[in-house]
């Protein structure tokens, strides 16, 4: 029985050993998959296309028209900085004749000095200073030292009035002391104030012997004075103000070689003056600049411009200056505006009532408002991308096509080309054939420049095999878009509007025909 079983199993094993294993050794495998890969998708508005760093300048009018609003304010205290109250030091002495002073039952006013003190300002002639800082220091002494004289000096500054009590400075000094000026204002007469010093012998039960050449000395110092406002006539002076620049880089370099015409751009200058003094602003330079070139802005009123000034301290006066050649300037497509100016006060005047506070500024605000309404051609956008296809087998890509679907509500046509370059950015070839580059079709517009119908491009763009092969040996790919605004039915350029609701829906995909062979 076991013999039979053995033979049975042996027969089976012999049977199943009759297999040629070579038949199950697969030498190679090849597949030809076609991959449909999404590359880019999304919906872009004109706001998205403008450089993100400038997005804060993108605004929308109530009618949905997008505009660029640039505003730069030059804040200068150039006029206020014209004024400074210098330190003033006064040394005065009382001569006390040689004698014996009998006992005094009460204080005895001996001598006095009255004087009109000049702060020494020029050309301004101030009538009032309200101090925000500084001090008056005083020091009295007797010479020669050791004289046994009991005295006081009464220091009276009647023009220095306390802002809290309304009382003038009036102190009796014997030795050193100081008074903070931040609580005082001084009434001046063309920079001058009154001062009176009175020497007082103090009551004494004993007689006082005064030696020869005896003096009572008074040193009075006005130091570190700063003002919260000044009033008076400030003189005919010129303040040089710092220069400033307004960057208008929303389009980057895209408009460098473009022909641009904005339908309704606006540029104005607003001068806000806190200084209560007649002032004339002289724009030494006011120009739009681009790549070393410039264009002057023509102002109305013409330069130099007398600006308004406030009649009450704490108020401001505004002067608006417009640019008369704004369309010309914007067609130049500057990427920045530069201005530099002087401010001249009291031009030709010999008197007047001026004022300013220590916080008073001259603000020159430049507003550039560019509604995206107009026409343009030859707008260029360039971007460079690094390619790294070293891990891909070139032979595995048989062919490829770009799937492009763009539904464009923006009135902007674009021709796009992909340039393949070596590591030195030398162009090897372009990816698309010349007749394949018009990938973005602008919308059609009404006579008023509004959207009529979106432009639709929906095609599979076959890529030339020889050009495609060069992708694998390229180091960089430069994407260049050349754009024009939509034209009318006859092909003539028309002013078009870019509204915020207009979108460009982009779907870009790649259809790649691969051939993958594996030797096993």
């Amino acid at each position, binding site marked *: *029985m076991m013999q*039979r*079983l053995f033979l*049975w199993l042996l027969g*089976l094993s012999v*049977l*199943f050993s*009759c*297999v*040629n294993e*070579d*038949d*199950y*050794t*697969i*030498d*190679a*495998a*090849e*597949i*030809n*998959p*076609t*991959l*449909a*890969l*999404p*590359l*880019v*998708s*999304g*919906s*872009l508005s004109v706001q*998205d*296309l403008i450089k*993100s760093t400038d997005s804060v300048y993108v605004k929308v009018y109530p009618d949905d028209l997008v505009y660029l609003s640039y505003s730069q304010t030059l804040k200068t205290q150039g006029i206020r900085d014209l004024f400074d109250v210098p330190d003033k030091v006064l040394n005065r002495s009382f001569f006390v004749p040689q004698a014996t002073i009998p006992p005094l039952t009460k204080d005895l006013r001996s001598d006095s000095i009255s004087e009109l003190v000049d702060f020494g300002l020029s050309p301004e002639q101030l009538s009032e200073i309200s101090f925000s800082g500084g001090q008056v220091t005083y020091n009295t002494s007797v010479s020669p030292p050791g004289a046994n004289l009991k005295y006081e000096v009464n220091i009276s500054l009647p023009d220095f009035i306390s802002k809290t009590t309304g009382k003038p400075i009036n102190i009796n000094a014997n030795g050193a002391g100081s008074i903070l000026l931040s609580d005082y204002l001084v009434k001046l007469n063309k920079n001058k104030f009154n001062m009176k010093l009175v020497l007082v012998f103090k009551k004494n039960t004993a007689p006082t012997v005064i030696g020869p050449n005896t003096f009572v000395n008074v040193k009075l110092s006005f130091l570190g004075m700063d003002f919260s406002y000044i009033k008076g006539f400030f003189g005919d002076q010129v303040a040089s103000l710092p220069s400033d620049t307004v960057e208008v880089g929303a389009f980057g370099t895209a408009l460098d070689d473009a022909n641009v015409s904005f339908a309704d751009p606006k540029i104005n200058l607003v001068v806000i003056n806190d200084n209560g003094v007649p002032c004339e602003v002289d724009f030494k330079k006011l120009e739009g600049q681009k790549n070393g070139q410039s264009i002057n802005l023509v102002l109305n009123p013409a330069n130099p411009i007398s600006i308004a000034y406030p009649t009450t301290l704490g108020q401001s006066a505004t002067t608006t200056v417009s640019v008369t050649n704004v369309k010309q300037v914007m067609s130049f497509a500057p990427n920045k505006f530069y201005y530099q100016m002087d401010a001249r006060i009291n031009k030709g005047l010999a008197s007047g009532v001026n004022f300013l506070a220590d916080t008073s500024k001259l603000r020159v605000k430049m507003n550039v408002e560019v509604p995206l309404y107009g026409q343009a051609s030859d707008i260029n956008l360039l971007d460079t991308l690094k390619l790294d296809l070293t891990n891909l087998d070139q032979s595995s890509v048989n062919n490829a096509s770009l*799937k492009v*679907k763009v539904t464009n509500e923006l009135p902007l046509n674009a021709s796009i080309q992909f340039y393949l370059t070596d590591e030195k950015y030398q162009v090897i070839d372009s990816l698309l054939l010349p007749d394949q580059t018009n990938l973005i079709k602008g919308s059609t517009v009404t006579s008023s420049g509004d959207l009529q119908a979106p432009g639709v491009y929906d095609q599979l763009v076959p890529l030339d095999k020889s050009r495609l092969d060069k992708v694998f040996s390229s180091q960089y790919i430069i994407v260049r878009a050349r754009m024009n605004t939509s034209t009318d039915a006859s092909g003539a350029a028309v002013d078009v509007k870019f509204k915020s609701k207009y979108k460009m829906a*982009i*779907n*870009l*995909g*790649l*259809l790649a025909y*691969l051939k993958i062979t594996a030797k096993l």
Partner: protein
Amino acid sequence: MRRSRLTLTIFCLAVAFHASGQMEGTLHYMSCLPQVVNNNPAFVPKYKYVVGLPISSLYEGYTNSGFSYNDLVKRQDGQVNADLTGWISKLPEKTFITAAAGADLLRLGFRINPKVYLGVNVTGKTFGQGFLPKDMATLLVDGNAPYVNSTANVSPMLEALSYLETAVGAAYEVDSKLTVGGRIKILKGVANITTEASDISIAVDENYGITASAGIDVRTSGVNSLTNSGYEVSKEIKNYMKNGGLAIDLGATYRLLDKLTLNASIVDLGSIKWKTNLYSYSMDRSVATYTFSGIDANQLVNGNGNEYIQAQKDSIKNKFDLKEGPTDAYRTMLPAKFYVGGNYEIIKNLNVGTVFFAQSFKGRFSPGWTTSLNKNFGRVVSATLSYTLSNRSYNNFGAGLSLNLAPVQLYIVGDNLLKIPSSLIVNQNLNEYINTAQVINVRFGLNFVWGWDKSEKGTLAPSKTKSVNQSPAKKPKVKTGTSKKDASYLKVRRKSKR
């Protein structure tokens, strides 16, 4: 009547052409084998007494409803190259690949009286089924472009179960026409992998935007611990046997006409509850859904392309996070099988039988059809030739051979064995057979058998008369020119005809 038969025949053939089962059609009418009761518990084998030891029956089966090896390769200039494009073109929408194995550890069968046949078996079984959606293969080979504006369903499924079956069954002859049978099976699950849910899809829109979604719920028992270092199955065998289950087989045969017997059965109707060493892998489809439509144009315009791609990578990683961990007990059904057939006695010891069968498992209903010619050459040799439609495969010529050298019975049977000799003759190897086969199954072994039943019980049908109950003294006399036992069998038949 003839038209309705024709219609029925065409329908059955049509169903069978698309069939993809994992079953044994050729075995069905090999009445000399005690294993025939596997297909129908009402079948009564030829031998009254059977003892099967661990080698009594070994079964291996493989089916592939989608392709054969030849569909996968192309031979050119002495080289064998994978022809994946050709393979895809031939694939059906759903390809099921199954593998099954079984081995009797013990089999006992004995007829306790003329009406009752009892059987006991202990059998180890393993079944595995993988589902390959055509879309998955297409994606790998042809890419995703064919799915622009459509969705590829790439939900694979894997089922595997291994269990020990202890079965007690009986066939009972109700009357001269009807025999019924049943079997109760006590199941002990060893290991299981089941895909409770698999819903993975990749959709491509007209602009090539790709949406991937994945919902997965795979549960396992007795598998995860195998990956633990130091884990020894032998020490944990007790745990493996804690997965209990129950199943039943039901069957009947009915002699419709004198020579025509019908049969029907349901086999492996039951389930196993998996309780030990449970581990699951899941992904929530409501979370694991991601659409990539390309780099966002706004991000690109703002020069944030690289950051955007990195953010998308992180998002994908978070969304498609495969959760894994211990899970609760679960229950899986066995692959239930259904057989309906008929057997016609052409002449003595020569029958033609046909059986439609189907397997239902995890939502897959896979039918098939076998027709066989069965011949007993005396008691020593029983042979069967068959033709089977199964798994979209129509070149399955099967055979069965039993050498009844009582008490030893050696046998082999399979649904696609007949091509083996032709392959050997023509090519001196089995390659042609293997390369073209989508159905390969073979059962072979050695039984110990006694008591060849010369009545029709061994034809899987009730006896035509009650002669088998007669005492030996009343047995019909042997007719000259035939062996004693065969002549007796023949006479009984003749009597019944009268």
